[in-house]
């Protein structure tokens, strides 16, 4: 089957923000076609102010999005607000990479619990929406960065945050090669 990837953004930066963009690039380098979703009802930057409302508006997109792309059995790559797609990924049995998922939200966690395909959770201990212990109870595939915030930035020189980005990319690539499209 043709490899494909569905990229679902957070509430701020769109699907070409650093974390989803490089993760999707990793899939593309492995021969996948990439579909970038843009929220139709979430204004960029607004999600942080009213998460409950953003989740509701995001959900309006997700049903049709998965009806369209689910049958191709894509790898789902989602950042933050995009983790509201967890129940849909579970329903379609899709592997996924959840970048700084909203682990404080019940329906996201329920969706992750219901997953049958492998998934990677990426988060930082300085992110209020992250819960490392919960993450490790949900999947054996967890990449956690000490001191990283919701954007996966760490304190100190900015170069340290770029090193984190490099480590996330390496973790994403290792997960894809081992569990999504195994290297023969």
């Amino acid at each position, binding site marked *: 089957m043709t490899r494909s990837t569905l990229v679902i953004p957070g509430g701020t*930066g*769109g699907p*070409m*923000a*650093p974390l989803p963009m*490089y993760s999707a690039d990793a899939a593309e380098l492995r021969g996948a076609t990439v579909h*970038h979703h843009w929220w139709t009802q979430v204004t960029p930057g607004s999600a942080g102010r009213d998460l409950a409302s953003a989740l509701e508006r995001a959900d309006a997109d997700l049903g049709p999005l998965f009806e369209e792309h689910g049958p191709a059995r894509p790898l789902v790559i989602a950042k933050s607000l995009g983790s509201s797609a967890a129940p849909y990924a579970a329903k379609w049995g899709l592997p996924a990479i959840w970048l700084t998922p909203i682990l404080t939200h019940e329906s996201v966690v329920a969706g992750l619990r219901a997953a049958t395909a492998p998934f990677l959770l990426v988060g930082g201990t300085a992110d209020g929406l992250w819960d490392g212990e919960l993450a490790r109870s949900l999947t054996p595939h967890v990449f956690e960065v000490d001191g990283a915030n919701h954007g996966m930035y760490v304190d100190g020189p*900015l170069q340290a945050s*770029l090193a984190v980005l*490099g480590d996330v990319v390496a973790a994403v690539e290792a997960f894809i090669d081992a569990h999504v499209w195994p290297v023969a």
Partner: protein
Amino acid sequence: MTRRVLVVPGGMNGPMVPTLAFPAEAAARRGGELVPLWWTRADPSVPAIADPADAPAFAEVDLARWFAEHGPSRPLVIGRSLGSFAAAHAARWGCPAIWMNPLLHREEVVAGLRAATAPALLVGGTADRSWNPGLARELSPRVHEVAEADHGLIVPGPLTASVTALAGVVAAVEDFLDEIWG
């Protein structure tokens, strides 16, 4: 004086792409007050410009408004690709600027860069057709060029090499910020 920073996006993908997000973060960490901008006429999921000839007119609708509002505070401008059509505005207001993957094959952009009086950093890759190494160096003494990088500053080989290239870009941006903001 506040250090306002206008982040002017390329024609697609908005102001949070890696080549804008990290330079903007570097500015924020130096007290910069970020103003990320989105083209109001664009659906971000489709290319903003069907015909390259329309690009300046497309961009000008928002640029005129943004610079009328923010120009007087002489912000730092961080612009990428289509956003480099802001060069004329930056020159007019005397704004320092960081131009990521500027459209050096477009006369309007080059004229704006030539007219600049404040320092500008030009960042580009040698595999980007809109980049011109000789012209870049003629336009500014501050040039950071990435060998073999494309218009998104992605280099061939493993993806981590592109992250390393981005780290080099960010280091150049940080040096530039420390120069202009001391």
